[in-house]
């Protein structure tokens, strides 16, 4: 298509080629095929990989000139074009601007097209202000403006959870999770699987959302024996462990795989182990699990044999705690 549209004229009539590029994007937008199609067209026309950062989903999309999706790598220094009407949304061509005579035009038309396709959300001002407030790529000045418009000030708590919080005025669905912002630090998360993190003021919200996401990864399910609402501030150095372990890497750990195998046949295993490392005594653990004390003692004997260490000792508890955390992380994906 690149040959067809941007190199067709042997006389190098760049004006005609430019018109073709413009017409192509205009027609694409008219067809409303989705953002991916605009990005693939830009990649095919420019003959290089094209990237797009979408603040609404906090995702990066990239396509090579053949239209194949590429990994979401955002580490780049390429010239970006802002998408009109979507603060924090950018498109870039992964080659020095000016390598192709039409690159600047292709980039601009692609960004413009994406802007046209995305600016239609109802109650747009509120949602967009909320997006801007938590968007790490937005300018602090825009963030402060948006926070003022939303009436946000002072200490705030960012919550990442499965479902919308009725207690919050500010909820934003992103992918599979909901980001909620609550004023103050007193947050009732009963019956929620959630991660939370504090922000000293609205300008700290992008970091707080990032931290809340991280805490969410360590949260147990609501009916599990572990904590279902995890606060980033209480994680301490564990936060760094979570950061270092994407699900795939966690899944490679031998003890994670052992837990996976064992829990396949013994569905009680993960909850039992969690209660054993969290509770101060066997009796309390049995209470949490709603099993008889002697049943739990039998399970402990069996577990010690399977795991190869003594879960009753502090060292064993620490080891099991880490294994459980990594097991949980490995189950995110």
């Amino acid at each position, binding site marked *: 298509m690149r040959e067809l549209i941007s190199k067709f004229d042997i006389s190098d009539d760049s004006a005609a080629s430019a018109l073709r590029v413009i017409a192509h994007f205009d027609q*694409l937008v008219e067809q409303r095929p989705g953002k991916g*199609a605009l990005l693939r067209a830009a990649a095919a026309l420019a003959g290089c990989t094209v990237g797009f950062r979408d603040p609404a989903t906090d995702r990066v999309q990239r396509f090579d000139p053949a239209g194949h999706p590429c990994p979401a790598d955002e580490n780049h220094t390429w010239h970006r074009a802002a998408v009109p009407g979507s603060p924090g949304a950018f498109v870039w061509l992964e080659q020095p601007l000016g390598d192709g005579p039409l690159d600047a035009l292709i980039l601009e038309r692609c960004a413009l097209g994406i802007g046209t396709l995305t600016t239609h959300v109802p109650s747009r001002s509120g949602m967009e202000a909320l997006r801007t407030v938590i968007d790490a790529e937005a300018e602090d000045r825009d963030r402060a403006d948006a926070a003022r418009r939303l009436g946000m000030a002072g200490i705030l708590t960012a919550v990442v959870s499965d479902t919308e919080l009725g207690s919050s005025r500010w909820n934003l669905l992103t992918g599979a999770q909901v980001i909620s912002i609550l004023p103050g630090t007193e947050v009732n998360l009963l019956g929620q699987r959630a991660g939370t993190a504090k922000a000293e003021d609205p300008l700290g919200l992008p970091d707080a959302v990032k931290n809340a996401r991280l805490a969410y990864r360590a949260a147990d399910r609501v009916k599990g024996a572990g904590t279902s609402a995890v606060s980033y501030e209480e994680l301490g150095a564990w936060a760094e462990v979570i950061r270092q372990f994407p699900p795939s890497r966690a899944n490679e750990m031998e003890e994670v795989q052992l837990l996976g195998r064992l829990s396949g046949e013994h569905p009680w295993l993960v909850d039992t182990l969690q209660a054993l490392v969290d509770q101060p005594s066997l009796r309390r653990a049995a209470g949490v699990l709603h099993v008889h004390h002697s049943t739990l003692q039998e399970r402990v004997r069996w577990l010690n044999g399977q795991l190869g260490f003594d879960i009753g000792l502090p060292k064993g508890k620490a080891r099991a705690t880490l294994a459980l955390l990594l097991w949980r992380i490995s189950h995110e994906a």
Partner: protein
Amino acid sequence: MTTVDPPVTAEPPVVERPPFDPEIAPVLPVLREVMPGLSDETLSTMRQVLDEGLPGVPAPDLTAGGTVLVEERQVPGPEGAPEITLLILRPSAPASIRLAGIYTIHGGGMVMGNRTAAGIDTFLPYVAEGLAVVVSVEYRLAPEHPDPAPVEDCYAGLVWTARHAAELGIDPERLLIGGTSAGGGLAAGTALLSRDRGYPELSHQVLICPMLDDRFETPSSRMLDGQGIWDRHDNHFGWTALLGDRRGGPEVSPYAAPARAMDLSGLPRTYLDCGSSETFRDEILDYAGRLSAAGVSVDLHMWGGGFHGFDTTAPHAALSRASVAARDEFIRRVIES
């Protein structure tokens, strides 16, 4: 020059057609700019476009950066007819085993195209990867050389290829025939000829949006009028160039228009694809159904909203990627085994 005129498209048009896929639709205006409708007046220009490639675009590198040996041979044509040229592409690294052979027939509506263009790109990568030997036939074109010249040339080239399989490093058990558009129709016709003449044995036929039916009886053969690629007028021109007055009548052989073959049993394992918004759609769906009913194993893919040849002219689109990937997987299953 032989003329086809007048290519009257008498059959009434069909109004309903699936919309073009939104991602590929915007490519159509440019394509039609480069390739206007076929007529006696435009044929020579169109041939030039297909032969030389688009202005300013270099010809495909058949050596694939030195990984492919390119050779041409003059081989006997059909009885009493001139010799034909075969383009032979082999991996430059010597293979320790015999490779699959892909005998390919170029497209171009029976009236255009040549052995190095209009379809060779589909199979070149397999040679570059050392997986196959490709032979592309230069058959005589209509209207200067009407039926049966094109399909008999294709058959003669296939016979030569099969007889020289050992010399070419081809495993005779894995001899595929393939082609796009008119090349797909000729491949289907050539496969019928080899079945009926008892030589050579083909293992697979890969018919990419093939041109199979000269009769214009199906809805899809009447639904495009100035839209998409290869509309009913272009199709009418192509078939009339090939068959002259016989087009649509009782005297057309199944080797020229394979949709007319009554018996489809004993044909090779088949891959068929098409777009849902192309002239050839219904004849392809019908051919797939009848092949299956005759006991032939068929893979059929119809891509919703695809126009004729969409995965070549808009290869970056999601629909094209899906189409190319499905076909590629099929071919790899065959040639890597």
